[in-house]
C-alpha cells in the first residue's frame, strides 16, 4: 500500500453551499504532507470526511486502505487526530483527557507522555475549563503524539501556541517523521508547512490548485524586498528571477525567488543600501497573486 490517504473527486455540500468541489489528495505512507489553504477553503471538511464524521456526496475516499465511512472505528485504531479547535470536558483534568483519548485509541506510551508533558510545559492537573486555548491545544497534541499510531491527522494544530511552543511542536513532528509515521498537517501558514513537509497540497474553494514537493512549489516561496538605495537602481529589471518590480526614485520594491537572493542583494549593495526589509509572502498574498485570475475566470 503506497498511499495512506487517497481522495479523488470528492464533493461535499452543506445545504446550498459547496464546501468541497472535486477535491483530490494523495498522501504517501511515511511522508509529512502539508495541506494548505486559506481559512474556509475546505481543509477541515476534508479531514472530517477522512475521519468518517461527514459522509461524502461523491468521489472516492480511501484511508489506510479502507473506507473511512464504513470502517471508521477499525481504521481509527491506527490514527490520531488533533482538531483545530480543541474543547475539553470542564470537569476532567488535562491528564485525564490525555489518558482517556489514548486508551480509546488503543494505548498510550507512558514514557512518551511524560516526556511530552515536560517538553510542552503542560500542567496535567488543571481542569478543562481552566486551560487557555493554547493549553487545550497542547492537551490534544500530547494525547495524539503519545499514542502508538501509523497516521497523525493534524488540523491547524499550532493555532494558539506561542512561537516557542511552535518550535517544540515542529521538533516533535520531525521525530515522528523519523519513526516513519505518516502525517497530514493542515495549515494556513506557509512557513510552518515549509519547515516540516515533504510534499504540499494547496486547496482553495474546495478543490486543488497545486500539489507537489516544495521544490515544485518554489515559485510560491518568493521573498518580498523593500529597499532604500544610495542611488538609482540599475539592471534589476533585467534579472530573470525578479518580479513585480516597482521603482520610486531611490526606493525599490520587488519579489525575488529565493535561490536568486544572493545575486540580487549583490546588485543592491553595489548601488549602496540605506535600509532594507525582507519578508516571506503571506499565503493570502500568494493566492491573490497566483490564483486570482483563476478565481475570476470561474
Amino acid at each position, binding site marked *: 500500500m503506497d498511499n495512506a490517504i487517497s481522495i479523488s473527486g470528492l464533493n461535499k455540500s452543506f445545504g446550498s453551499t459547496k464546501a468541497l468541489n472535486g477535491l483530490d489528495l494523495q498522501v504517501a505512507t511515511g511522508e509529512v504532507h502539508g495541506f494548505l489553504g486559506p481559512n474556509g477553503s475546505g481543509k477541515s471538511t476534508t479531514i472530517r470526511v477522512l475521519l468518517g464524521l461527514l459522509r461524502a456526496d461523491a468521489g472516492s475516499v480511501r484511508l489506510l486502505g479502507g473506507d473511512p465511512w464504513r470502517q471508521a472505528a477499525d481504521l481509527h485504531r491506527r490514527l490520531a487526530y488533533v482538531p483545530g479547535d480543541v474543547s475539553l470536558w470542564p470537569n476532567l483534568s488535562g491528564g*485525564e483527557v490525555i489518558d482517556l483519548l489514548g486508551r480509546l485509541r488503543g494505548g498510550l506510551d507512558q514514557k512518551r507522555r511524560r516526556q511530552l508533558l515536560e517538553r510542552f510545559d503542560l500542567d496535567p492537573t488543571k481542569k478543562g475549563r481552566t486551560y487557555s486555548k493554547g493549553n487545550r491545544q497542547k492537551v490534544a497534541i500530547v494525547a495524539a503524539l503519545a499514542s502508538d499510531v501509523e497516521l497523525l491527522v493534524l488540523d491547524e494544530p499550532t493555532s494558539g501556541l506561542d512561537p516557542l511552543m511552535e518550535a517544540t511542536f515542529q521538533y516533535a513532528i520531525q521525530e515522528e517523521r523519523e519513526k516513519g509515521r505518516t502525517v497530514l498537517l493542515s495549515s494556513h501558514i506557509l512557513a510552518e508547512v515549509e519547515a516540516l513537509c515533504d510534499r504540499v497540497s494547496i486547496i482553495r474553494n474546495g478543490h486543488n490548485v497545486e500539489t507537489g514537493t516544495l521544490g515544485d512549489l518554489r515559485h510560491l516561496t518568493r521573498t518580498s524586498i523593500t529597499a532604500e538605495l544610495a542611488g538609482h537602481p540599475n539592471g534589476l529589471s533585467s534579472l530573470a528571477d525578479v518580479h513585480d518590480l516597482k521603482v520610486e526614485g531611490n526606493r525599490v520594491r520587488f519579489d525575488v525567488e529565493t535561490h536568486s537572493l544572493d545575486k540580487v542583494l549583490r546588485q543592491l549593495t553595489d548601488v549602496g543600501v540605506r535600509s532594507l526589509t525582507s519578508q516571506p509572502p503571506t499565503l493570502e498574498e500568494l493566492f491573490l497573486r497566483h490564483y486570482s485570475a483563476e478565481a475570476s475566470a470561474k
Partner: protein
Amino acid sequence: MSGVVGTRHLVRLALRRDRVVLPPWIIVLGVIPAATAGLYDQLYPDQAGRASLTHAMSSNPSLSLLYGPAFDLSTAGGFTAWRYGSLIALVMGLVCVFTVTRHTRQEEDTGRQELLSSAVTGRYASLTAALITAGLTAAATGLVSAVAMIAAGLPPAGSIAFGLGIMLTGWVFSAIAAVSAQLAEYSRTANGIASAVVGATFLLRAVGDAASDLGWLSWLSPIGWASQLRPFAGERWWVLLLLLAATGVLAAVAYRLLPRRDVGIGILPAKPGPPVGAPGLRSPLGLAWRLHRGLLTGWLGGFAVMGALFGSMAAGIGDVVGDSAQAKEMFQRLGGASGMVDAFLAAISSIYGMIAAMYAVQATLRMRTEETGIRLEPLLATRVRRLRWVGSHLVFSLLGSALLLVVAGVATGLLHGLRVGYVSGQVPAVLGAAVAQIPAVWVVAGIAVLVFGAAPKYVMAGWSVASLSLALALYGPVLQLPQIVVDFSPFAHVPKLPSAAFTATPLLWLCLIAVVALAAGLTGFRRRDVG
C-alpha cells in the same frame, strides 16, 4: 469613596444584561401569592371549614416541613403566606445567588472583569453593583407581591410585611453569595456553595417547624425568619431587624474578604484534578459516568426527598383537602376514584413519571451539547463506534430515569407505610405504581433520541414533548379536554395504580413505541453528519 467609583455604570450594565432573565422571575414570584389568595374563597367557601383549617394543617408535621408553621389559615392572606412564604423565599434566594455570582465571580472567570477593572472602576465597584442589582430584583419582587396582594383585597399591613419578608430574605442571600464569590475560584463553585447554604437554611426551617421540640432551629434560618414575621397573623415587625442585621454582617464580611485576594483567585484555592486518568476512565461509559454522575446524584436526592415528603403526607391527605369538593375531584380525576389516599398515591406516581421524563430529556440532550461543544468529534476519531457512544449516554437517560422512579416509589411507600403501620404492603404497592410509569418515560426519551438522531437542529423539541406530555396528562382532565387530545400524552395510558387495576396492554404498547422511536433515532444518528 474611590473604591466604588463606576458602580453606577456597572449597575446599568448588569440591569441591561439581565433585562430578559430577571423580569419574568420578578413577575412570577410576585404574582403567584396574590393569585392563590383569589382561589382561597373558591376552595374554602364556608366559615366552618376555614376555622378548622389551621388546626388540621398545623397538626400534620409533613405539611409544616414543606410549608412552614400554620399560624392563621382562616383568612386568605394567612393561608397564602403559609402556603407560599417559605417557598418563594427559597426561590428568591436562588435567584439572588445566581445574580450576584453572575456579576462577580463569573465576570472574573471569563476575563471580562480585567477589562472592567482596567477602566475607571473602584476595587469594590463590581461587588457593590452586583449587590445593588440583586437587591433591586428582590425589592421589585417584594413590591410586586405587596401591591398585587393589596390589589387582590388583602389587608395592607400583612401584604407589606409579606413583601418586605421576600425582599429582605433576597438581600440576606445576595450577601451570602457575595461572600461565596470571594471564597471560591470558579463561578460554579461559588454558586454551589451559596446554593448549598440556601438549601441548608430551608432544611433548618423545615426540621425546626416539623419537629415540635426543635423549634429553635427555624430561628437559625433567614427563611424561618420570613415565616416568623407572621404576615396576616399578627405581624411581628421586629423580625425584619434580624434580616437586615444578617444582610449587613454578611456584606461586611464580603467587603473585608475582597481586598485579601487577587482578581481571578479565590480565598479557597481551587482543587487540582488528578494528573492521570483513573483506571475506570477508559471507555465511553466511563466518560459518560463522569459527565452524568453529578446530575443524576442531584436528581436522585431530589426524588428521595420528594418521595419522602409525599409519602409522609399521603395518609393525612383527607385533612389537607378538607371539605373542598373541587380539590377532591381534581385528585380523583388524576388518580382514579377508589379512596382518597390511593387516588393521591396514583396521582403523585404519575407526577413522578412526568418529572422523571424531564430528567430523561435532559440526559438525552447532553449528547447534543457534547456534539455542538465539539467534544464528540475527537471521541469518534478514536475506535469508539457511534452507537456505543450513544449507548453510554442512554444508560443514564433510560436506566437513570427508571432508577429515579424506583427511589421515589420506595421512599413514598416506606414513609406512607410507616405512618399507616403497613410497610410490607405499601412499599410494593407504591413502588409498582411508580415503576409502571417507566414505559411512558421511555416514550418521551425515545422521541428525544429520535429528534437527536434525525433532526439534531430541533433537539430542543425534546423539551416540548416532555412538557406537553406533562401538561396534557396533568391539566387535560381538569380542563376537561377531549380524551383524544389527552391521549397524546403517554402518561394518560399508564394504569392508575394502586387505585385502579393493573393492565399490561397499554404498557406493552408504550414500550413498543419507545423501541421504535429509539431504533429510528439510532439509525438516523448512524447515517448523519456529525458536528
